[in-house]
């Protein structure tokens, strides 16, 4: 009898889902997990399971909404972390997204959280959390327009069917929640503002967890029949290996290419880059805001400026640095138009700040405004031509133009001139922190003769390696990486990164055994998650599927039956 009710409910939810979605056929489905399949492989195109503390994420046959298994998520308070099932799907910028799942909790007074989010992860901001459900004190809440809104008191051991029609462009969603055994929905809401009330907030992942950081939840809950679909037909590339539609190595290479092809702001090496000379430093110190400026250039916390109780000169400088800082953040987020505006504002406030102009050019490159790029570049060329960062900036512009020849041309002489003997203390000092920090000034004072070599090593060498790889010259890339390994070996410092690069180049030459050797050597020096997933690929290529799984699950976890 109970089973018949379940089947009726499945049919009811299915029909409602279809009504909600208009049309749903396999070509509209991004994600579908009933947890009944024999094998559910974790990976970047399916999901990851995180069980870093005492909680668990497991499939169970003890309760289920349909089929014979569901997913059980169990959190343990005060254990230092939360368990999570985090799923991935193709990034959606526009259109509609349909989310359906069944939910049952054993402990309504313990917190659980369910969310859809985008590239900004699980934060309240644009492209962060789009849709968010949570339980608190026995009630189910939605988080809409940045505030929790009560939906219903939630009962223990009752299945609830949740259907969301999420309009990405409008930044709003319709929400329907059914209780098992009832035809009339308990919740039927239209046009709810999304979590942070942002139109066009993209989504590409979902998550089921306990509590969000307070570590006070002892929840046990169950999820079944997770379906995510869209209002348009989509072409999904088939899986080439368990849990992934491309090999990890290809994802990694693509992400390197994207990040390096997307210009990022150049960092400062000296306050003079910001138009701050000795006179200005004195003025800022006298106004008590020199440390604030240093903090602002460090970029670790949100920055602000003051202008009401300091000299107008200091106020102008701080405003310019604040605009520059905002521009850097915007460009890193891929908001090139906003970045350009901020850099231009900074430049107008302090024309002597040469970093503002070059970062404006990089923003123009990100926007693809090539005529403007060329015009602005020629205007600042004389000022920058002897600056060590200039080749890196030009290579970024070359990569953004998808002109690898140009990028290689800029990088080659600088990369090849990384000397074999770089002062050990110097390179350690430079590698101990970001080059943009005021600490670089100290490095320059301590190593007046050779500090430029270390900067070349840090900024140019990697970029050159990637350009060779992407130009289809893995053998040349491997040769270059070997030289870097030898240099680091002589210096007696960790060469793990360049060993990994040698493995990458070997992989791209289909020399998998050699790639494995280099990756394993790299891992002996430094345990790096990125290298582990590449090892999984190597084992996949070598046909050792057990080890493929072992290494993949070291990163993405595993989903097993309880």
């Amino acid at each position: 009898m109970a089973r018949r009710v379940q089947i009726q409910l499945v049919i009811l939810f299915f029909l409602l889902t279809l009504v909600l979605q208009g049309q749903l056929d396999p070509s509209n489905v991004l994600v579908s997990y009933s947890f009944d399949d024999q094998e559910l492989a974790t990976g970047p195109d399916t999901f990851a399971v995180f069980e870093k503390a005492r909680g668990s994420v497991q499939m169970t046959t003890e309760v289920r909404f349909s089929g014979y298994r569901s997913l059980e998520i169990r959190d343990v308070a005060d254990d230092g972390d939360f368990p999570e099932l985090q799923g991935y799907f193709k990034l959606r910028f526009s259109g509609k997204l349909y989310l359906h799942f069944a939910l049952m909790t054993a402990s309504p007074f313990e917190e659980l959280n369910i969310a859809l989010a985008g590239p900004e992860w699980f934060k309240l901001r644009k492209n962060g959390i789009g849709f968010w459900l949570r339980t608190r004190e026995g009630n189910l809440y939605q988080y809409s327009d940045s505030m929790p809104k009560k939906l219903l008191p939630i009962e223990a051991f009752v299945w609830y069917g949740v259907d969301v029609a999420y309009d990405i462009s409008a930044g709003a969603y319709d929400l329907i929640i059914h209780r098992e055994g009832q035809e009339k929905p308990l919740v039927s809401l239209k046009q709810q503002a999304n979590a942070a009330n942002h139109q066009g907030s993209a989504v590409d992942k979902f998550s089921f967890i306990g509590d969000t950081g307070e570590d006070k939840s002892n929840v046990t809950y169950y999820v079944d029949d997770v379906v995510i679909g869209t209002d348009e037909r989509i072409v999904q590339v088939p899986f080439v290996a368990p849990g992934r539609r491309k090999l990890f190595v290809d994802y990694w290479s693509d992400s390197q290419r994207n990040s390096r092809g997307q210009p990022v702001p150049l960092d400062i090496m000296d306050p003079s880059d910001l138009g701050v000379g000795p006179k200005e430093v004195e003025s800022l110190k006298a106004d008590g805001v020199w440390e604030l400026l240093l903090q602002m250039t460090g970029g670790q916390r949100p920055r602000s400026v003051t202008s009401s109780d300091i000299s107008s000169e200091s106020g102008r400088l701080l405003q310019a640095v604040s605009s520059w800082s905002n521009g850097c953040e915007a460009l890193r987020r891929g908001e090139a138009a906003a970045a350009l505006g901020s850099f231009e504002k900074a430049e107008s406030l302090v024309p002597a700040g040469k970093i503002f102009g070059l970062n404006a050019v990089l923003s123009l490159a990100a926007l693809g405004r090539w005529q403007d790029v060329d015009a602005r570049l020629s205007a600042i060329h004389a000022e920058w031509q002897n600056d060590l960062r200039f080749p890196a900036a030009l290579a970024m512009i070359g990569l953004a133009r998808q002109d690898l020849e140009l990028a290689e041309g800029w990088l080659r002489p600088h990369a090849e001139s990384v000397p074999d003997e770089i002062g050990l203390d110097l390179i350690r000092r430079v590698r101990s922190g970001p080059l943009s920090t005021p600490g670089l000034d100290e490095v320059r004072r301590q190593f007046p003769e050779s500090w430029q070599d270390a900067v070349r090593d840090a900024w140019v060498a990697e970029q050159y390696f990637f350009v060779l790889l992407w130009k289809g010259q893995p053998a040349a890339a491997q040769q270059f990486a070997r030289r870097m390994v030898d240099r680091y070996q002589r210096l007696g410092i960790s060469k793990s990164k360049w060993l990994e690069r040698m493995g990458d180049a070997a992989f791209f030459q289909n020399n998998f055994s050699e790639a494995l050797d280099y990756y394993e050597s790299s891992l002996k020096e430094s345990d790096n998650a990125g290298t582990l997933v590449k090892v999984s690929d190597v084992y996949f290529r070598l046909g050792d599927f057990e080890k493929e799984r072992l290494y993949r699950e070291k990163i993405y976890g595993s989903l097993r039956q309880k």
Partner: protein
Amino acid sequence: MVLVKSAFLATVCSCLAFYSAPIEPTVVASLIAQGKTAAVKALGPEVLPVMVRLYESSDEMQRTRIAETFYQLGWKSQAAKRVLMKDVHTSNRSLRLQVQWALGRVSNDDDVVDVLLANMENDANPLFRDKAACALAYDQIHLTEKQKARLYERLIQALSDPKVDVRRIALQALSIHTGQTKGFNPEAQVAERENSIRQWKLWLEEYKSNL
């Protein structure tokens, strides 16, 4: 029988806990000095009173490290709040910043939020104002939804502050909490700002009505 056995085990465990060795302040001081927060955490909440006593008897440099450890532990403690509040106006830069950041992680009392708001609005040093806003944005981890509404109300009030930097950092704190700005531009003309503030106030009313 199983129940009897469980009860017996529970009694034994609680007795063992009761008779476990007291935490040595010198050990805690050494762990804090070495930055070994995980080891401090492993001692459990019983370490908090020891840290409080250490804080009270330490110089500013050591108090800074202890405040940082309170921050990293993130455990509520009235006693920790009490001693940290004594340094919430110190002019020692490192100590002040660590105290401002730690307070919201040891307590959700209203007066913690109040003192941070006061520092954000009125401190003579812009760095301390700025970092008080950071603390309000990131570190009020124990606030209830009602207390959050109170914090938002005060931050919305600060959007009308005559000082542009106060308006800016108040907005920054609000946007970190909510992901929204409601179009508020701290440098805009009064009329434009007031328009956004009205939107914030409407939002706050709705927030409160949902509590």
